[in-house]
């Protein structure tokens, strides 16, 4: 019997395949350490035009990777497309008929790029906790080398949500001549104490798992799955909004505060009573099967350390002083992880630095995760902005 073929939507990039690129020039890191050589997993969609002016870079957030759009397996009808499929494809905001879209798994990741689970050539064993802490600036430097490799001197746009938006800011600050537009979505100029606090809970969950073995769990042929699950559960709560949870887990929304029971009655025990419990456990568990614990620890540190003002006396507008690109900043009303006021801090700094900037505050109930979703006003706005970016490329401005 033939495998069932899935129907790929017309506005999908279709079947895609990642490629692994090797870089042998040592990468100096912010920590003072160096990575001698590394691989980056990369996916691209669309075609680079003759003057290489239509490249756009997509920067992923905490748990993202290079697979931003399309499918891998035509025979698997259950396969979900890449993580930002709603935005990338023919006719979509990041229109693959007009742009050459590049997305990579960042250094330190666990989806094929060099990271803690990769083999350390010096020891022949996985790096584990010996893998250096990578900062946003290091990522962006590695992305600039990727651009060199692809023959892209200047991106038409660099785009990212959440931690991805932080990479966009770093691009505009550290490599001002290498991008024309910066799209900073659901981001913050740096983490708040509350953000760091949540990250600390996540780290403690992982590190206190008996299977963690100080990060050398690979050597013990085990994995701190419970710890990663807990970390993700806590993280996941911060990605959603109270309103959304009420709607999702409250029949006749608003009446019972999202307290829908799972079995119809209370158990008077410590088992799962409410739908939200099983939902959260399911989310945590499925994530923990596919994500490396050391990468999770590392990326939470990358988030905590992000502060683009560190070389500019703590002044964000000074940091943007040399930026030459135009900016679009977008926030979402129900995002309490990086709420609109954090985006407005970015906007105000850009105004003070006299940069071209547009700012949108999208009304949405989906919390921080909104940036990943096809919210109509958000999609329309991205489409309009990127349409102008594409028109500039057609002018051959490089």
């Amino acid at each position: 019997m033939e495998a069932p073929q899935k129907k790929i939507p017309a506005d999908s990039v279709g079947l895609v395949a990642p490629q692994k690129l090797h870089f042998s020039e040592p990468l100096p890191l912010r920590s003072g350490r160096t990575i001698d050589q590394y691989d980056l997993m990369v996916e691209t969609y669309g075609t680079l035009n003759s003057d290489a002016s239509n490249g756009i870079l997509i920067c992923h957030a905490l748990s993202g990777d290079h697979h931003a759009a399309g499918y891998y397996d035509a025979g698997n009808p259950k396969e979900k497309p890449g993580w930002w499929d709603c935005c990338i494809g023919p006719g979509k905001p990041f229109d693959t008929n007009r742009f050459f879209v590049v997305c990579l798994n960042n250094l330190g990741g666990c989806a094929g790029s060099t990271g803690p689970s990769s083999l350390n050539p010096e020891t022949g064993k996985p790096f584990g906790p010996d893998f250096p802490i990578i900062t946003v600036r290091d990522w962006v430097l590695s992305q600039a080398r990727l651009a060199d490799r692809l023959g892209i001197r200047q991106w038409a746009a660099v785009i990212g949500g959440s931690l991805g938006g932080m990479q966009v800011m770093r691009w505009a600050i550290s490599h001002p001549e290498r991008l024309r537009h910066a799209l900073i979505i659901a981001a913050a100029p740096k983490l708040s104490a509350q953000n760091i606090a949540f990250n600390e809970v996540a780290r403690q969950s992982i590190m206190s798992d008996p299977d963690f073995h100080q990060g050398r769990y690979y050597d013990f042929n085990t994995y701190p799955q419970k710890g990663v699950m807990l970390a993700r559960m806590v993280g996941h709560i911060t990605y959603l909004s109270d309103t959304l949870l009420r709607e999702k887990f409250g029949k006749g929304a608003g009446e019972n505060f999202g307290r829908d029971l799972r079995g119809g009655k209370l158990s008077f025990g410590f088992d799962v009573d409410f739908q939200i419990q099983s939902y959260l456990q399911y989310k945590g568990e499925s994530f923990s099967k596919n994500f490396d614990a050391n990468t999770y620890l590392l990326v939470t540190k990358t988030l905590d350390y992000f502060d683009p003002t560190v070389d500019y006396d703590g002044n964000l507008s000074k940091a943007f002083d040399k930026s030459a690109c135009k900016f679009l900043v977008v926030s979402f009303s129900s995002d309490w992880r990086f709420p609109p006021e954090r985006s407005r801090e970015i906007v105000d700094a850009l105004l003070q630095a006299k940069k071209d900037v547009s700012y949108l505050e999208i009304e949405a109930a989906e919390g921080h995760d909104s940036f990943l979703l096809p919210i109509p006003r958000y999609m329309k706005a991205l489409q309009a902005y990127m349409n102008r970016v594409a028109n500039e490329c057609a002018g051959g401005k490089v």
Partner: protein
Amino acid sequence: MLRADLQLIQDWIAPHSRVLDLGCGDGSFLAHLKTTRQIRDYGLEIDTANIQLCLEAGVNVLEQNMDKGLKNFGTGSFDTVILAHTLQALHRPDEIVDEMLRVGKNGILTFPNFAYWRHRLSLLTGGRMPKSPQLPYEWYDTPNLHHCTISDFDELCRLKNIKVLHRTVVDDSQHSSPLMRLCPNFFGINAIYHITR
């Protein structure tokens, strides 16, 4: 074709200046000034449909409610701040005028003159709140919170030591006439002010 009042305003805007348009609508005026005056354009808007049109027009638009203040804009960070047909709908028009002249070196604003003779007549004879093409609302659903007259605004400028660089009054089709120039607070329908400190 540019509306006649915007045509007038345009002449008060210096080439290459930084312009902040409070309530910039669909952004077409800023887009026009970009072409004709090579300005650096910024618009404030809260209507989502208008914000979308601004993005399509390629003007810098900021989703921000000016009624909550302009604190995020630096003192003297703009050459000209524009407020077209919105003054009377703000909670504290006097404060926004102060803010316009803090943020900008000069301000341009327009508002409907409540002392226009037809409005006076309507109150005098009918005893009802005036309605007109500029004031099409009922008293209970009007967005206009603080109606003012040309004399009122002149008085506000005097109290605040604001210098009026230009003042023009126009009719519905944005044209002026000798009668309006003779007796602006009686015959003028719309007032256009160019002010500074």
